[in-house]
C-alpha cells in the first residue's frame, strides 16, 4: 500500500527585494490514502505554501514530493497537467471560479478537458447534490460566497480525484455557510474515500480531522492523530 502523499525535507524560500525569507524549513510528511489531514498554524507559518508545494502548484527549493510513490518534484507543467486534472481536486479560499463560465460550465470544465462525454449529466448530478440545481446558468459574480464554494467543490470532484487539496475553504464564508460547506466536504470525502488535505487556522475544523499537523515558523511542531 503506497502513501498518498509523501515529502522529504521540503524547503521553500521567498525572495523579497534583497532579503530571503525561509517559509518552509526541511519539512517531511506522509499522508495515507483516505486520510483527512488538517494543516494548521498561525499566519505566516507556511501552511498555504506547504499545500502549494504538495500539490505541485509550486516548486520547492530543496526536498522532494511524491504523489502515490511518484516523484513529481521536477515534472514540467505539461506532465503535471493530467495529474491535476484527474488525480487532484482543488478548493480555494477565494473560490477562483472562471468568471466567463456559468456554474454548470465551471463544473463541467475539468471533465471536458478529459474529453468525458458524460460531463454535463455528471456535473448536473453533482450540482443537484449540493443544492445548486436552480443556479446552473448563473455566473460566479451573481452567486453568494457559499454558493460559489459549493460550486467549486463540485468542480473539484467532477473527475473523481483521489486527493483533494483545500486551502482555507471556509475562510471567506460566514459561520452558517462555512459549516455547511465543511459538512459537504467531509460527507463527500467519506463517501468516496478521497485523501483530504485541508489548510485552516480554525480550531473547530481542526477538531474534526483525523490528524492535525501544526506548523510554526516553517517547521512541523506537532503531528497528532486522533484516536
Amino acid at each position, binding site marked *: 500500500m503506497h502513501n498518498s502523499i509523501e515529502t522529504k525535507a521540503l524547503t521553500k524560500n521567498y525572495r523579497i527585494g534583497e532579503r530571503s525569507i525561509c517559509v518552509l524549513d526541511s519539512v517531511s510528511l506522509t499522508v495515507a490514502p483516505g486520510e483527512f489531514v488538517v494543516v494548521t498554524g498561525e499566519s505566516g507559518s507556511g501552511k498555504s505554501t506547504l499545500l*502549494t508545494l504538495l500539490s505541485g*502548484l*509550486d*516548486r520547492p527549493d530543496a526536498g522532494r514530493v511524491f504523489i502515490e510513490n511518484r516523484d513529481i518534484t521536477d515534472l514540467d*507543467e*505539461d506532465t503535471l*497537467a*493530467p*495529474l*491535476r*486534472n*484527474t488525480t*487532484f481536486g*482543488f478548493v*480555494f*479560499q*477565494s473560490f*477562483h*471560479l*472562471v*468568471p*466567463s*463560465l456559468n456554474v454548470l*460550465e465551471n463544473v463541467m*470544465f*475539468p471533465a*471536458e*478537458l*478529459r474529453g468525458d462525454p458524460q460531463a454535463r449529466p455528471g456535473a448536473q448530478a453533482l450540482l443537484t447534490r449540493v443544492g445548486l440545481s436552480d443556479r446552473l446558468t448563473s*455566473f460566479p*459574480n451573481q452567486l453568494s460566497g457559499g454558493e460559489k464554494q459549493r460550486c467549486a467543490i463540485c*468542480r473539484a470532484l467532477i*473527475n473523481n480525484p483521489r486527493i483533494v487539496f483545500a486551502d482555507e475553504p471556509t475562510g471567506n464564508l460566514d459561520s452558517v455557510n462555512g459549516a455547511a460547506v465543511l459538512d459537504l466536504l467531509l460527507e463527500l470525502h467519506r463517501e468516496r474515500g478521497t485523501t483530504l488535505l485541508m489548510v485552516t487556522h480554525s480550531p473547530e475544523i481542526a477538531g474534526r480531522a483525523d490528524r492535525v499537523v501544526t506548523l510554526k515558523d516553517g517547521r512541523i511542531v506537532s503531528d497528532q492523530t486522533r484516536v
Partner: protein
Amino acid sequence: MSSLRFVIRQIAGARRQGAIFVMCVALSIVSLVSLGSFSRSVQASLLRDAQALHAGDLIVHAHAPIPASLQTRLDELTRQGRIATARYYDFYSVVRTVAGSRSLLCDLKIVEPGYPFYGRVLLASGRDFRQVLTPGSLVVEQSLLDRLQLRVGDRLSVGNATLTIKDVVLQEPDRPVNLFSLGPRVFVPAADLNSLGLIGFASRVEYITLAKVLHAGELNGLLAQLRAAVGESRIRIDSYQSADSRVKRFFDNLLFFLDLSGIFTLLLAGFGIQSTLFALLKQQEKTIAVMKAVGARSRYITGHFCALTLVLGLVGTLVGLAASLFLQEFLPALFHGLVPARVELTLSPWAIGEGMLIGLFVVLLFTALPLYRLKEVRPRAIFGKEESPGFSNRSTWVITALGATFFLSLVLLRIRELKTGVYFVLSMAGLILVAFLLSSLLLRFLKSRDPRNLALRQAIKGLFRPRSATRSIMVTLSAALAVIFTISLVERNLDASFIDSYPSDAPNLFLVDIQPDQKDAVAGLVGSGASFFPIIRGTVTAINDSPIDPEQERRSRGDNLGREFNLTYYEKLLQDEKISQGGSLFRADWNEPQVSILDIVVKMHQMKVGDRISFKIQGMPITARISSIRTRSGSGLTPFFYFVFPPALLSDAPQSLFCAVRVPKDRIPELQNRLVARYPNVSVINMEETVSVFGHLMARLSTIVRFFTSFSIAAGVLIIVSSIFATRYARIQEAVYFTILGARRRFVATVFAAESLVLGLASGSIALLIAQVGSWAICSKGLELDYHPYPGTSLGLLGATAVLVLVVGLGASLPVLRHKPAGFLREQSDE
C-alpha cells in the same frame, strides 16, 4: 514633492499602459508638427516663388493702353511712395537680319527699368540685366542667334529700328522655361519703344504694369482699390497671391487631404489616450478605493491623477518633439522631386506651438472622461465588489458632445470649408455608428455559437467575460482599421489607374499634323512599328435629328459634344479597346454610313446602337448610324478616338495624320530635330518625358500620402496593443485556472490564440466591409475611376490584422505560462 514621487511610482507600476499613453501623445505631436511644418514651408516657398513668378506684387494686365483714370491712380500712389511701377509690353513680331535675308517670328518684351521687381533675369555673361539693357540694346535667347546665324554684337532689325544684340538671356523669372512660345524671346528697353513703331491701332499687344507694394500690409487693400477703379472693363488686376497658379492649386489639394488624415490620426491617438487611461485607472482601482477609504477627497484623487496625466502628457510631448526633429532630417529626401527645390522644409515654431496647443486640447479632451469617472470609484472596490458604470451616463454624453464640438471646430479651422468639414465629421460619426452596429450584430452571432471544440468554445466565452469591454474594443478597432483599409484600397486603385496601367511597350512619341503626302517620308524616319491614324476634324450637329446646342453643351462640367472632334477611320479594333455593345465594329448588313463610338461619348449624351449622329465634317454634313460602342482598358496615355468610321466613308476627306511610335529613348532628341527641320508643320510630343515625369510624380505623391497616413496606422496599432493589454489580467487569470484544473500549455495557448484570432478577424472583417463600401464610393463617385475590390490585398490586410492581434494577444498572455501557478495565486490573494 511627495505626491510627485507618488505619481512617478504609480506610473512605474503601470508601465505598459503608461508607455502607450506617452506614445499616443507623441504620435499626435509628431503628426501635427510634421504636417504643420510641411504645410507652412510649402506655402511660404510658394508665396516667395509667386512673387518671382509674377515679377511684382500687383499685376495690371490689358490688351490696350490702360485708361487715363487708372494711370492717374497709379501715378498718385507712386507719388505717395506706396508703390513703385514698371511697365512692359509683350507681343510677337518678325525680326530681320540687317541684310534682310533672314527673318524670324519672335516674342518681344519691351521693359521699363524697374522690371523685374522680384527674381532675376539671368544672362549668359552673368552681368546685371539692368546694366546690359541700355537704350539701343537687345537681349535675346540663344535660339534666335542659332536660327538667324548671328552672334552677340551683331545688329538686328526690329520694326523700324535697328538695335544691337548685347547678351543672351538664360532664364526669366516670370516665364518658366518650358512655356510654349511661337518664337524666341527678345528683350528691348522701353526707351526704344517709339522707334520700333510697332505698337499702334491694329496691333495685338499685351500691356502690363507691374507694381511693387512698398509697405507690406497694404497689398490686399491696394488690390481691392484698384479693382474697384477699373470695374467691369477688360483690364485684369491680380496680386501675386490671387493670380492663378496650377502649382498652388495642386498643393492646396494635397495639403487638404493630408490635413484630413492628420485629424484622423489625432482622433485615433485620442482614443488610444482614452483607452490607456481607462485601463491604467482600472489597474489602480484598488489603490484609489483604499485612498478614498482612508479619507482622501475626490478632489485630491482627481488632482493626483490629473498630475499623473500631465506628467505622461509632458513626456509624450517631449518625445513627440524629439521625433519631429529627427524626422526633419529625412523629410527633404522624402519630398525630393515633388516639392520645388527652393522649398526649405524646416520645423516652424508656429507649427510647434500650434501642435502643442492642439495636442494639449486633445489630451484634455480624451482624458476628461476617465478622470471624471474616478469619482465613481467607491471604497468597496477594495473588496472586489464593483459594479461597472453604464454607458448612458449623462456625464458621458456631455463629454462626448464636447469632444465632437472640439473636433468639428478643429476640422473647420484646418479645412476652412463648412460643408466639407461637416461632411467629414458626419462621416466619422457615421463610421463609428456603423462599426458599432456591425460589432453588436457580430457579437450577438458569436454568443449564440456553440462549437464542439472546447478550446474554441472557451475562446468565444472569453470574449464575453463580465466587465470586459469587448464591444468597445471591437468598435474602436473596426473603425480605425476601416479607415486604414480604405486608404490602402483607394491607393491601390489609384496606382492601377495611373501608374501600373501604362505598359512598357506603349508608344512614347506622338507626331501630329503630318500631311498625307509626307507619310512615307516620316514613316521612313521613325522606323517600323509606327501606327498612323488619319485625323479628320469635325463637329457633332445633331443626335437622332434633334440638334445639339454647342453653347449649352460647353456649359457641362466634363467633356461635351459642343467641341470639335478628331475623327478617324479604321477597320480593326485598337489593341487596348474592345466592343461593349454591338457585336462587331461595323455591320455588313447596314447600307448607310456607320460610326463606332467610345463609351465616354455615351456619358456626354444618351445614345445607343442604332441611333443616328449627324456630323459636320470639314464643312460637309454627314449622318451616320451607331454600329457599336467600344470601351478602353488603357491608361489614357495611348491614342484613342471617340468616333471611328469605316474607311470607305472618310478616306477621301481632307485629313492629317497622327503617328504613335515607340522609339528608343536615346534616339528621341535627334529624331525630333530632324522631323522639325524637314517638316516644320509636324509637332512632336515626347510622351517618354511626360510619362516618366508623371510616373515619378505619382510615386512621390503616393509616398507622401503613405508617410502621413502611416501615423494613423501607428495610432491604430497602439489602440490594438492597449486594448489587448487592458484585458491581459483576465486572460492570465483564466490561464492559471485552466492550468490548475489540468489543462496543458497547448490548450491554454490555443484558447488565447483563438480568442485573439476571433477578435482580430471579427474587427478586421467589419473594417473590410466598411472599407470596401467606402473605397467604392470614393473611387467611383469621387474620383471617377474604375473600382476593383482587390480581393488579394483585402485578404492580406485582414490577415495582417489577425496576425497583429494574435501576436499582441499571445505576447501579453503567454509569458505567464512559464511560471508556476502558485505565484499568481499568491498575488491574487495578497490584494
